[in-house]
């Protein structure tokens, strides 16, 4: 009994009056991922590694739609890890409750480019801009950038007439 009382007195009050005091969040805490709409090029790397399918990529009417739904997110931070543009930041926000479901969504629509030969939408404008920059950085000449991968292959193989069809 003596030790119980001693421990109780020495310990004192441990419970913190949250939410009336600031929460303790250590640096490096994995909270809500945030998409920087200015940096995202819509490559979809995040969607392909996302374990719970919280990030989805859809293509419609010449736009690629990237959607991050925090309601499914498991806060593993894999999206931030694989993003080639550092467009996803892992924030320390964890107080995410809301009355409106739409508050849990981050949706970005990026304009896509048509293939010059077959006319199908195949990449976002920002993706192509990025590719162009990378190629120029290596001092190489930029060519056939506005062709979709299949048509580019045919043209490279000298089958341009086949591609035109």
């Amino acid at each position, binding site marked *: *009994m003596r030790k*119980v009382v001693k*421990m109780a007195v020495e*310990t004192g009050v441990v419970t913190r009056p949250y939410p009336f005091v600031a929460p303790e969040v250590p640096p490096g805490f994995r909270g809500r991922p945030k998409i920087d709409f200015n940096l995202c090029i819509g490559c979809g790397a995040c969607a392909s590694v996302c374990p719970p399918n919280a990030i989805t990529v859809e293509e419609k009417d010449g736009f690629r739609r990237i959607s991050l739904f925090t*309601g499914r997110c498991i*806060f593993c*931070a*894999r999206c931030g890890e694989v993003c080639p543009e550092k467009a996803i930041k892992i924030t320390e926000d964890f107080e995410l409750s809301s*009355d409106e479901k739409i508050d849990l969504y981050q949706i970005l629509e990026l304009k896509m480019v048509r293939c010059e030969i077959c006319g199908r939408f195949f990449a976002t404008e920002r993706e192509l801009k990025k590719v162009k920059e990378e190629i120029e950085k290596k001092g190489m000449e930029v060519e056939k950038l506005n062709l979709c991968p299949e048509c580019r292959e045919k043209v490279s193989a000298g089958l341009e007439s086949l591609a035109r069809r």
Partner: protein
Amino acid sequence: MMRSQIYSFLEVDPGSLRDKMKELVDAGARFSTSVAVDERPINSCFSHTYILFLKDRGYVLLTTKLSSEMPEHDTLTDIVPGVEWAEKEAMELVGIKIRGLPQKRKLILPENWPEDLHPLRKDFDYRYRPVEKADLEAEGLPIGPYHPALHEPESFRLYVRGEEIIDAEYVGFLVHRGVEKVAEGRLTYNQIPFIAERICGICGFIHSTLYCNAVERAAGIDVPERAKWIRSFMLELERIHSHLLLVGVVCHMAGFDTGFMHAWRLRENFMRLAERISGNRKTYGMNLVGGVRRDIDNIAALDFLKSSKKDIEEYVSMLMENRLLIRRCEGIGVLGRQDARKMCVVGPVARASGIDIDVRRDSPYEAYGELSFRVPVYMEGDVLSRVMVRLEEIKESISILEQIAGEMPKGPIMAETRDVPPLIRSIAAGEAPRGEDIHFVITGRDNKVYRWRVRSPTYNNLPALPLMLKGNLIADAPLIIGSIDPCFSCTDRCIVLKEGRRYRLEELVGRGRL
């Protein structure tokens, strides 16, 4: 002693399975679990693999191939009574007919599940859900599935004479989530660690580690030394907070809430350390196939350990001084050594009943081959011994953490990525806080696993509960059940079910309940 985890394969035809099993068991083999696989798409047959552990040979995978039309063989329950659950699971989920297996009730699938439908067969789509019908009828004295003293949905039927329990029956798998099916059906290699970690709400890291170990072995990936040490560090951290949780729960069930509060106060410090290291207090998210994602700051960890060691010692001496608690736990829920061996129990439950096993020492994985620690064993087999084993293990784990933080080699923490070859079998075993945990993997194509089987420690410990409950008082039942530290979500590998109806995530969000 073996310095690394080894395993070997042994194939027999169904007719000689019993003889071979007998031979191995006579040679001292301990049964871990069994895995049934629908191999029709790859080998035009079914297979059933019994995983056994032999002190000098490591893990032995005793496989028998079964015909694709009539997959059946004789039961081994009379040789090792502990195989019953694993065999029932093979029968229900994969549809292997096991002759002579006592079949009173279904184990995993609901009683109203259609007879000829086996969810782990490859022709069963993971999105398919049969229509639900009537429920089980009640009998005996029910405890659960929702009971204030038990913290998860599980149900026991106690058969009593007055206050005395004369028999008990477990009705579980109420939260079977089909984790393995989702992993085989939809997830890629590096997504599975995150669902593996969510198999258990307490000791998730051991599951993601063992899953990664199994895939790494199949693919021949050399995990960097530092990553191994970091994994061991997180595993021991997990063991400490898991054991402190259980000690607290036992205090609570015994009516000593001060002990409960202090145990959880101390546990909180370890949770915070885990949060500082990994970015989250429970789902560390550290593991990927090939290594870990974050490094550890050794110095900060050492400082923390110094102060927490003293706290734990004070707490233990405070508990030991409390005669009420000791008397409440002493001599109840006894599991004798013979029974413990027969039922193939693992972990602290086995060690409290005089069985000296610990995967970390007997078949080392990660950095455990290079660490020194003691394995506490008690002979009494009662609730108190199970608590004492854990209290001593907490101290051992702190010493392991100090060794790791002091001696951890420098270097990279992630191996170079490489392709995983298809159709390779491998297993990984580890000592979870509740005992031996086994992951079995057959690698597949398209960056996915073909089969993944998880056997958590509670799966082996639960069947022994009726033996512990017999002869005790009803009032002690929750304490006895609690003392094996049962983890039902692990065991059930669990779909959100409520009032027989499945809520869609969108509905919950709409109601402001998420």
